[in-house]
């Protein structure tokens, strides 16, 4: 097989494997949450590998090598910036991003102040839903949970607690 033929064969195989993986993965997805954030199930090292795969791509690997070959030390500046970018991501982006995902999937990971805000908003939405589905308040006692009382539930037999921002256990 000539050099061109071998290169074309390798490219075709790579594209085929990539498409097969994409088709397989698409059948495993359960929704947009799975697609964008893997359902919030990724661990730290898995996210690290994904970030590395994004940054140490063929463009970076071959491009920086070529830049060093063509321009000398000036091309090395491109490589020197990568580890700094990783560390800046860790310091400035990782925690807010984790909290964003945690807020969606698991509030235990949140700062207590954010837990209170998120829980209050969720309860407000639940109160609104309850008001629409149960205008008479017959289900209010069953749904009673500590939190901010809505106008509908003030007349219910539930004993409401004041919202506590920091201490949620008594």
């Amino acid at each position, binding site marked *: 097989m000539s050099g061109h033929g071998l290169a074309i064969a390798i490219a075709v195989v790579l594209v085929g494997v990539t498409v097969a993986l994409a088709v397989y993965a698409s059948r495993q997805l359960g929704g947009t949450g799975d697609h964008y954030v893997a359902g*919030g*199930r*990724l*661990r*730290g090292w898995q996210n690290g590998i994904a970030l590395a795969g994004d940054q140490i791509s063929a463009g970076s690997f071959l491009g920086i090598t070529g830049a060093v070959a063509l321009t000398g*030390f000036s091309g*090395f*500046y491109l*490589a*020197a*910036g990568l*580890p*700094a970018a*990783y*560390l*800046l991501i*860790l*310091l*400035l982006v990782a*925690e807010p991003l*984790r909290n964003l*995902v*945690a807020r969606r999937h*698991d509030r*235990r*990971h*949140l*700062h*207590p102040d954010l*837990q209170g805000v998120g829980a209050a908003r969720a309860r407000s939405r639940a109160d609104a839903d309850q008001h629409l589905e149960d205008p008479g308040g017959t289900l209010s006692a069953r749904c009673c949970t500590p939190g901010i009382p809505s106008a509908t539930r003030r007349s219910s037999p539930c004993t409401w607690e004041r919202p506590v*921002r*920091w*201490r*949620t*256990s008594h």
Partner: protein
Amino acid sequence: MSSTVVDRDADPDELDAIAQRRIHVVLSASALLVVAVMALPILTSFTHVLDGVVGGIGVAYIVGFGEFVLAMAGAVAYCRWVNRLEAGPAGAEKAR
């Protein structure tokens, strides 16, 4: 995802202090990192500090690869520190 469980009975002022300390550490480390990284092109472009050659390798290249090590060491140190911080009051005490 790390399993951070916040101590719900912790003193609010203490949690505020921990959060402020974390922000202080993160911003300080970020500033130091930017200074360290930007020092390389500045020193190589405008000074002769890194013009030497050691063992056939330019000092600037050695310093540049040293930044890789610096970034890795910084990441490991920060992860250890923040894991202790999120482990609860006992870990936060160690992280001080």
